[in-house]
């Protein structure tokens, strides 16, 4: 059993195309300036459809994290224990990622991380690395 592939939709294809070039992209509303937490086709604040893609710097802060010991599917079982973190990116959008070095990493809320990329069968996927303090 494979891990779930990311299978882009029209709403988030530019994000995944960006990942293949090792770039993280996010959406900014051209009408009210709201950064969208995750990609979509409408601004969650003013409901404008005019969202523009921007390149992010790749740095963010750990909002929360968990070490997973009980995997949801057999595909993830061999990875346990692994870390899932929610990252608030510097520009104001959010990513869920795994952490490079898995459960060996000493991670705390508020730590700064840098987004790198990990190869999966369907392409490159974001993964985070702790920035040296």
């Amino acid at each position, binding site marked *: 059993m494979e891990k779930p592939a990311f*299978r882009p939709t029209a709403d988030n294809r530019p994000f995944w195309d960006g990942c293949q070039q090792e770039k993280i992209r996010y959406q900014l509303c051209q009408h009210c300036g709201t950064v969208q937490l995750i990609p979509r086709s409408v601004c969650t604040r003013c409901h404008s459809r005019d969202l523009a893609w921007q390149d992010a710097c790749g740095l963010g802060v750990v909002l929360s994290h968990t070490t997973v010991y*009980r995997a949801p599917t057999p595909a993830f079982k061999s990875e346990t224990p692994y870390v899932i973190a929610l990252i608030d990116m510097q520009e104001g959008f959010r990513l869920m990622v795994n952490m490079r070095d898995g459960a060996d990493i000493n991670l705390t809320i508020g730590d700064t991380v840098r987004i790198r990329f990990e190869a999966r069968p369907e392409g490159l996927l974001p993964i985070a690395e702790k920035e040296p303090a």
Partner: protein
Amino acid sequence: MSMHAFITGAYDTQIGELPQSSCMGLHTQAAFGAIGDAGLEPGDIDGVLCAYSFTEPHLMLGSVFCEYAGIHPKFCSAIQAGGASACIMIMQAAALVASGQCQHVLVVTGDNRLTGMSRDGAVAALSEVGHPQFERPFGISVPASYALVAQRYMHEFGVTSEHLAAIAVEHRRHAGRHPKAHKRDPITIDDVLQSREICSPLHLLDCCLISDGGAALVISSRTAAATSQRRGIEILGAGQGHTHEHIIAAPSLTDFGCKTSSAQAFAAAGVKPADIDVAQIYDSFTITLLVELESIGFFERGQAGPAALGGQLGLNGSLPCNTHGGLLSYGHSGAAGGMFHAVEAVHQLRGQAQQRQVDNARLAFVHGDGGILSAHCSLVFGAV
């Protein structure tokens, strides 16, 4: 303010490991139990609301159930809002009888997800609620999502693993007084802390059970309820709150829609949290209940944990909570999980809760949470 809706029938089936059960069989047993409890015949039911099933999934579960049970209502539909389904079904049934569209609405739930699909199967199916592009490729699960909330909440408000464990221990104590509960053997705080880690900081005993079971209510109009043989339970208030579905898109990891839903329900009922005699609140994980207790206003921020440690959620505490044992110890059968809370509230208000009876229980609060603290529905019930 009255919502002009009354609970006339309530029933829950056996719960736990029921190898001879089927999803539709559990629905039927719960439905006919509730109809009988109301002193009605199946032909009296003119509205039916179902939820969803993992073991017999269908696009039209309401129609599937009515076909199976031989019921032909004027109104039939299915509502899917995860753990909030039961409360939302009750709120919707109340609207149907208050508007005069129906006289007696059956709200029925059940699933045999323990013996019908295995624990692994249920955990895998539940993980599919994760966002397909931005969560699932990273190995998210429902416990992992709640663990992310727990980690943040503990960080901000000084909640400890002992606080969470105290909630699990109290639920098991409650379940010990319910003859039908899935898990009744007492546990200690150490048992919880020593149990297998699932997703840090949550241990196995911080997580709800997976059970077979079913539960149903009959919601009746004021005129129809007046002829009921049962002591009436009135739905005094209801409210909902919706902020997100996926945890990645939650506007906050510490403030959720239960604040809005409960404020609306309390305002409609004209009561405040301190007036509530007994609470039945969704407890998919220990952290779920802790967050809800504080957001709803039963305890100040950071105080629900110490309160749980001090026995305040117990039968003789300031807020007897989940007196049947909740999802943590009574059992969890999909949408029926939330319906067990509502059935227990009815039993308490009717004075039928036997060993677990809260003295002179007149006002009950019932709350459902769907997704990752995403969809909330709060209800206030009163003994008439």
